[in-house]
């Protein structure tokens, strides 16, 4: 499904955010990406759909070389990869429905979408997705009128509109309270189980990793330091991933 090969990212010629990262993800996996703040989790996820261009290495998604894709090819790859963000990244002043519909932008004809015309079946589908995340009655509200948890559900609905084969979630629950965190994680789990969508999710809390992921990779200063099932993360591993200081604080 996804193959990340020797990916390195150097920001501004000095900051080495990723260092020779290699791993494969097979279809239907729920993969957690863990690591300290600044270890390169966001950078890794953004390299996969090339919101950030990797400095070196190759990324292959479903047999297509993402790193070598031109603009048109890249758009066709991106529309199959949904993305969910820590800060939700909704367009605040647009309606919830428009936010969800914008998940279709990679499919609809650009000429029509610039005048805000979406095919009727897309609108229907957007309403179904909103229903699925329990926000059918909020369709015409402005996105910034929603609470954080609701906004993240809209973010998930937007990603689902893409009919994704894979979802990249960058700390989707880091700005939510624990109860909401579980409800959002359950949506991702449901999408993973029912729709067979591969999920790559960076997480801060190990209990969430244990609970939802069937595999974890860990980054430390841009290097891959762990790759395996979450329950293999014992004290020894924990120290390797989070460093010695983590023990003292935790």
């Amino acid at each position: 499904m996804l193959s990340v090969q020797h990916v390195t990212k150097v920001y501004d010629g000095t900051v080495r955010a990723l260092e020779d990262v290699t791993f494969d993800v097979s279809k239907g996996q729920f993969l957690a990406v863990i690591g300290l703040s600044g270890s390169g989790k966001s950078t890794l996820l953004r390299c996969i759909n090339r919101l950030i261009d990797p400095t070196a290495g190759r990324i292959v998604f479903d047999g297509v070389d993402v790193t070598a894709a031109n603009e048109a090819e890249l758009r066709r790859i991106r529309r199959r990869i949904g993305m969910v963000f820590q800060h939700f990244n909704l367009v605040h002043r647009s309606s919830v429905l428009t936010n969800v519909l914008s998940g279709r932008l990679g499919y609809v004809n650009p000429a029509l979408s610039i005048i805000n015309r979406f095919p009727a079946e897309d609108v229907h589908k957007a309403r179904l997705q909103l229903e699925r995340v329990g926000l059918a009655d909020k369709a015409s509200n402005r996105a910034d009128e929603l609470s954080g948890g609701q906004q993240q559900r809209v973010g998930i609905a937007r990603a689902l509109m893409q009919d994704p084969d894979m979802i990249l979630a960058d700390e989707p629950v880091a700005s939510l309270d624990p109860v909401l965190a579980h409800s959002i994680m359950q949506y991702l789990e449901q999408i993973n189980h029912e729709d067979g969508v591969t999920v790559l999710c960076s997480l801060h809390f190990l209990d969430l990793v244990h609970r939802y992921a069937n595999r974890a990779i860990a980054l430390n200063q841009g290097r891959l330091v762990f790759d395996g099932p979450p329950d293999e993360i014992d004290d020894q591993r924990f120290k390797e991933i989070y460093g010695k200081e983590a023990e003292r604080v935790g």
Partner: protein
Amino acid sequence: MNKASPLKSLRLGLFVLAALVIYAYGFQVTDVNLDEIQSETRQTRLARIIRALFRPDLFEYEHEEFQVNTPISVPCPAGGVLPTPRPTAGEPYLVLTPPCADPRAEVTVEGFNFEPNTVGPLNFIPPSGVSLTMANVETDSDGHFAISARLPNRPSEEVQTIRAITRRNVGAPMWSQNARDTWSKIIETVFLALLATTLATILAVPISFFAARNLMRDVTTSLASTALAILAWPAGILIGASVAGWVGQASRMLTASLAIHVGAIIVGPLLIWGAARWAVPPEERRVPTIWLRLARQAALLVAVVISVLALFLVAQLASDLGAALRDRLGALGFLGEFFADLGDIVSLLIVPIAALAAGAVVGSLASRLGQMLNEHASGGLWYTLHFGLGILGGTVLGLLIGGAIGWLYEISDPVFTRALPAALGGLGGLALAVRTHAGRPVAIGLTIYYLTRTILNALRSIEALIVALVMVVWVGLGPFAGALALALHSIAAGSKLYSEQVESIMPGPLEAIKATGATRLQTIIYAVIPQIIPPYISFTMYRWDINVRMSTIIGFVGGGGIGFLLQQNMNLLDYRGASAQILAIAIVVATMDYISSRLRERAI
């Protein structure tokens, strides 16, 4: 701790000394002159102006005139003066002391029983009947006045007359001529500013995207694609201009008969709609074949040509209808005039806009071709294309710039307008090709960004008043010149403000929309525009506000609006007249300020 050291004190002392010198020099160059301010004549003049400014010339009244005559002999006759007839009780009368006098002698004239609190001239009427003003009189609350005035040098045998004329205001106050002029000019001012702001906003919004770093930063292409675009743009412009010109001529055949004209306007859009429906499918999951794509492009091309034709026809119809309405609508004739003007403007603009659009389309097609060549060519072919196109593109760019320089400085020597720029451009292209030979992209976005910024900054630094001077030369005196000047300045200033708004939007939504596979244009429409609407509205209102203020003074250089009237009154020393204009400006500016701040609140 922060201890006071001698070095620090010394630095502070030097600083104060430097400030002193700077201010002293400032006083000298600004000619601060306190003696002049305090001189008596200056002060009375200032007082006069201030008083006049507080009495704006706004109202006038119907007058009722009273004339009272009294005979006078100049000089005194040999046989003594005739006795003055006794006044009838209650009627106004004049008393002269002395009753006769030599020419140029002082006499005292007293008036009784006049209307209280009125003013008017005191005239001397010689036998010729041409009255000479001796003085102005002002009656007190009892209807009395006394004034001493010098007789004119008009000796005569006959008895002559002194006449006091007083005027009284009757009826309700009416707007004075000055007030009416002020009204029509302030309206002109507001609309001049509105037109300038509208025009400027329409142009500044798209320009501001090119001047926003966060949008342009990521736009990169290969050298081949850039070079092909440079080659294609001028070609596209030429094609667009000639096709649009040709369509314009063709449209004239259809406008001969009204029935065909109207019929064409109805059929045209249907054809366009049909073609667009077929060529722009709502959603596609797989990449269509190249032939289907080509056929669609062809259909779109036909639709565009028909659109241009339809635009010409509509413009012509608006122009004809407007002209017909202008003569029939009476007081609303300006609406007809407006339609006619709109039609004329559209038919004037079609060709340049079509030329630019064609340039853009052909340019972007060529750029895509370049991108394709860049991806699919390899080895020697790639190098040939890369270097060949790089040099060719540089040469053409050099030739274009050379042509512009030749026109600007009226150089006809082909060495300077052709050979040299072409050679330099070619070398530049070669240098770029060497720099990017390892497949590094050309940062075309940042180049456009810096270019736009530079032009905007240069334009912005030229005050609207100065632009107005140029525009007056181009389009003649009047509000149109002013509107153009304000528009040009507002485009530059507005684009900068707008682009700063674009630069400060939240990057999150932008990233999210990009991640859905949206194109650049879709990203702008779905992630950028919703975020910038409130500041754009508020800046546009603010700009209108500024333009109203600017247009009050743009009249000083002949740019129409109220400034012209103000300047005229100032030059005639009619400060009461000028005061009315200043008042009008103050009211309009305050109102605009209020409205714009209210609207800005609403928009956020």
